[in-house]
């Protein structure tokens, strides 16, 4: 394990019904969200190996607790902005698995009829305002959505997920400064998975914590959490969302986590030191949370039923996506403009 992962190993007593600020219902939601992310993402990997998903894909296996903790804390009309590694963050808003797998497979049933692909999953009706594939771009965009909510007085909060690599690009700093100066209802969530792409973030960053270490520059608290512990993520999310909704401005949260695979499909992740993956697999958020539910007193049969149900849902979505036809090539010429068309001349 690296130094960073040691900092997140904490021994906490298991929660009990008497000593629980989260509650059974929310705990089950947190587990279900993580399970759905895990099994859908594993299926995406399998479909890649079967060549049913083309192009590239950036999987969030190992990082499910961050999406789950924030997703469960959100109001249905809140906004999510995420990156090309955005399948988890999109799914936790309640977006259909068939829509996601269909988009990954380039099918008519895809969320965007195949026009966006793996790196751009969006479902505006669920508040999933887009997955942005150029590092940093969506931080100012999330700030703008928060500005809009502030002006319209809706109480909506924008949550913006990004990776550790984003902290070294200009848009990160511009967005944080603007959000802080304008006290915008936006929560910036850095998933620090130790690697920007193929390079360790610590080798190219001036501070130990790439996001939290910069927070003071924008007058924000330095917050580092265990991103593999859905309870800790959820608590941080509730606090930050409440602060934003109260008009007290943005938060920047650095969640320490780990991606089980490489950066993208093309990356076997051979740059990782021996034993690092194994150490993090021992802190895999999904089995970790499963054990916590058992310790909490949830009946094993309830947990197993939830797992079976999730796998069945993923199977069903897979079959539905496979059965969906390729989109008509007619869609290539639609929806450039708000009138539905693409004409640039009369």
């Amino acid at each position, binding site marked *: 394990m690296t130094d960073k992962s040691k900092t997140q190993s904490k021994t906490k007593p298991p929660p009990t019904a008497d000593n629980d600020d989260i509650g059974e219902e929310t705990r089950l939601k947190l587990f279900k969200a993580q399970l759905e992310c895990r099994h859908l993402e594993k299926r995406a990997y399998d479909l890649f190996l079967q060549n049913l998903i083309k192009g590239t894909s950036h999987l969030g296996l190992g990082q499910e607790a961050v999406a789950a903790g924030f997703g469960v804390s959100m109001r249905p009309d809140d*906004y999510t*902005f995420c990156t090309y590694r955005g399948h988890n963050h999109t799914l936790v808003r309640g977006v259909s698995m068939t829509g996601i797998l269909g988009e990954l497979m380039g099918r008519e049933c895809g*969320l*965007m*009829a195949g*026009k*966006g692909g793996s790196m*751009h999953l*969006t*479902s*505006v*009706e669920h508040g999933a*305002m*887009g997955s*942005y594939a*150029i590092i*940093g*771009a*969506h*931080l*100012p*965009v*999330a*700030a*703008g*959505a*928060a*500005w*809009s*909510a502030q*002006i*319209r007085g809706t109480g909506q909060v*924008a949550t913006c997920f990004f990776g550790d690599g984003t902290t070294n690009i*200009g*848009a990160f700093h*511009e*967005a944080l*400064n*603007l959000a802080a*100066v*304008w006290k915008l209802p936006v929560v910036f969530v850095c998933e620090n998975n130790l690697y920007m792409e193929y390079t360790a973030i610590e080798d190219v960053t001036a501070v130990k914590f790439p996001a939290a270490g910069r927070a003071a520059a924008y007058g924000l608290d330095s917050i580092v959490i265990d991103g593999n512990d859905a309870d800790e993520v959820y608590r941080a999310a509730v606090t930050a969302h409440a602060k934003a909704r109260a008009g007290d401005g943005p938060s920047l949260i650095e969640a320490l986590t780990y991606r089980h695979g490489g950066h993208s499909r093309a990356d076997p992740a051979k740059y990782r030191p021996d034993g690092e993956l194994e150490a993090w697999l021992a802190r895999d958020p999904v089995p970790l949370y499963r054990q916590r539910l058992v310790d909490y007193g949830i009946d094993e049969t309830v947990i197993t039923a939830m797992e079976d149900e999730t796998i069945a849902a993923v199977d069903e979505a897979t079959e539905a996506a496979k059965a969906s036809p390729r989109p008509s090539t007619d*869609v290539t010429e*639609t*929806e*450039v*403009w*708000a*009138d*539905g068309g*693409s*004409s*640039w*001349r*009369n």
Partner: protein
Amino acid sequence: MAELTYRDAVAAGIAQEMERDESVVFLGEDIGAAGGVFKATVGLLERFGPDRVRDTPISEQAIVGAAMGAAMTGLRPIAEIMFSDFLAVCWDIIANQIAKQRYMTNGQVTIPLVIRTGNGGGARFGAQHSQSVENWAMAVPGLKVVAPSTPADVMGLMAAAIRDPDPVIMFEHKALYAVKGEVPDTEHVDTLGTAKVLRKGGDVTIVALAAMVPKALAAAEQLQAEDGISATVVDVRSLVPLDTETIFREVKNTGRLVTVEENPRLCGWGAEIASLIAEECFYDLDGPILRITTPHIPLAAADNLEDHMIPSAARIVEDIRNAWD
């Protein structure tokens, strides 16, 4: 009709729309308390308040990114990028995000925003504050592009751009800010995608944009007086959508096309028009197409050097004379 400067017409167009629609907001560097570095937005902060007229830090990505996020969620932002050269600083957000988001999401979002920016040369500012970059924007699918040449057009096209449901880049020409012209007293809304025929002639059709329009008109008068060459002058006004109907009709009437472009030569907007004419009006042409542009060189700062590079009325006259010989 009232006489306004081009710069006052900018503020008048924005004010007309902010008055009408409270979802219209305006952000940019020095636009509020200072009234804009070109004084094109004087009075808007006082009239509409700091919630709707926001001074920003020098953060172009944050400006256009915030405008995008606001546009996706119910507002109609106007973002100022002070000099069009600075579009390069935030081009990712404009070209990769704003232009593509609606298409990639298969129409899940609309992005009704305006990015207005000071474009063009003539102020001796040198190569990084003088460029005409309308062709950058024209090259990106998903952006509408307008470049008005008169106070009435800047007001009317501003209003049309703000009301349009798609992203519009409004290139205001810095050399025109002080120009005066008649502007309607009543609500004034123009139509995107429409060119204007400003002068009718029988021999040649000169197609120009922004600050090249008054130069083309002056050249046309001189050609008429000294050479007996009678020119039609078309102000393109809108590059995307492009009013090919008007341009084709006027080229067919005279049989000759001359474009006058301030952008550097390669892939300037006139190249697209020349290509369209060659493809679709070839048999109506009586002679070669002529493109008059700034050379494919960064702009120099000294007055005589800059004047030598940007097309002038004298150069338009000379080039057309040479083409006639």
